[in-house]
């Protein structure tokens, strides 16, 4: 069963809707004791880095989830801000990140701000660069992005897909049981459904 972490930020219901359509069991987790019911997790998130980190750290689920992911090695998938929070830190704020995948969150910078406008908003194609189950059947796919910052992992081996806007940057990360995607699979039609299905099979 997939546990979708609800700490007050991010699009919980859209993820539930996709899994319902896929007939895959999922549950919204808001309290610590519910964590053990799931065998993997999704960490959504929308908003600014500090706001998200504060909300997550002070949520009821935080310590139980940390234990399940770090000691229990259960898979977790961070989406958008949920992915950025996996990093050590972010240029967007002062709070510490989770540090579950070593790396920093950096601001996208445009050399031609009129032609290449920011934030990066809309449908962009991605290039999976590692043979990872998350991208099975998704070699040629488009996902919906809406962000101004991106995750740069310290170890390039943790980058599993890139996209290109202002420059080529990492849009999906993986280290052991921890996964993250910058785009919104829950809002990316059949490509997103496929990715969320792949994740359920990991």
């Amino acid at each position, binding site marked *: 069963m997939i546990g979708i972490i609800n700490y007050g930020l991010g699009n919980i219901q859209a993820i539930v809707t996709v899994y319902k359509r896929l007939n895959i069991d999922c549950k919204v987790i808001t309290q610590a004791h519910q964590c053990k019911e799931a065998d993997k997790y999704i960490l959504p998130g929308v*908003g600014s880095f500090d706001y998200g980190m504060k909300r997550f750290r002070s949520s009821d689920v935080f310590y139980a989830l940390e234990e399940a992911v770090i000691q229990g090695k259960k898979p977790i998938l961070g989406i958008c801000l949920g992915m950025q929070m996996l990093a050590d830190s972010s240029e967007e704020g002062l709070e510490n990140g989770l540090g579950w995948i070593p790396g920093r969150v950096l601001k996208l910078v445009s050399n031609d701000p009129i*032609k290449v*406008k920011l*934030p990066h908003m809309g449908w962009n194609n991605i290039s999976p660069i590692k043979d990872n189950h998350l991208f099975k059947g998704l070699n040629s796919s488009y996902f919906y992005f809406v*962000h101004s910052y991106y995750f740069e992992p310290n170890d390039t081996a943790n980058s599993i897909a890139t996209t290109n806007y202002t420059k080529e940057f990492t849009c999906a990360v993986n280290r052991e049981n921890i996964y993250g995607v910058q785009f919104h699979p829950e*809002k990316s039609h059949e490509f997103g459904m496929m990715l969320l299905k792949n994740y359920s099979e990991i």
Partner: protein
Amino acid sequence: MLLPRVIPCLLVHEKGLVKSIKFKDYKYIGDPINAVRIFNEKKVDELIVLDIDASATNLEPDMKMIKNLADECRMPLCYGGGIKTVSQAGRIINLGVEKVAISSAAVENPDLISQISKELGSQSVIVVLDIKKKLLGRYEIYIHNGKKSTGLDLFSYLKVVVEKGAGEIVINSIDNDGMMNGYDIKLAKSVYDAISIPLIFLGGCGSQDDIKKLVEETGTIGAAAGSLFVFKGPHKAVLINYPNREDKEKLFKNITGETIL
């Protein structure tokens, strides 16, 4: 590469969907949730839903309706109407809406843009500017669903919107609303050249060729339309429609220069 976005813009009036002409003469289109379901099947790039009663009548955003829309929507959703505070914007984002659109409130209180941007991230704040063409090629901003003039010049105000940290601007032409005679291409180009944040243009679109023209000639990546996606035929019969992926691929092949998929 980042693809152009073709965006249906739906107007909610007295709980139903309507389409207007020059912000008046509402024609009933149907039930909002039903429309969202059809647009889901048509795999639209993004959807904008504007509650046109909320600001004009000083109502709070209808959270129940927004939740229903967000639950149903399988594509990115932008909601606007009646948002006046950061906390309302936050609640709406938490209901599963990707972007909140502010219009009247952004003009009356530009600091609201920076407040929402700071808390929710600039990518979540969309500013919608309703405009009318004036003498000497000037464009003036209107608020309260086109009912109230502000005296503000569009181009001076664009700078404010960008500086305050908006994530995207929607330019909505009151003169062209529902006319289906094509976008104001010259204006779109001038706005595109004036801002460093993404632009959505709305008002006047009557055909897929209009979309192609907007994207090719101005660089604008967001082409929004109301009438085109809810009416069919010369008598404007209500029929929800949207170009399929092959149509869009053909439409944008000069820009993408490649097969999209």
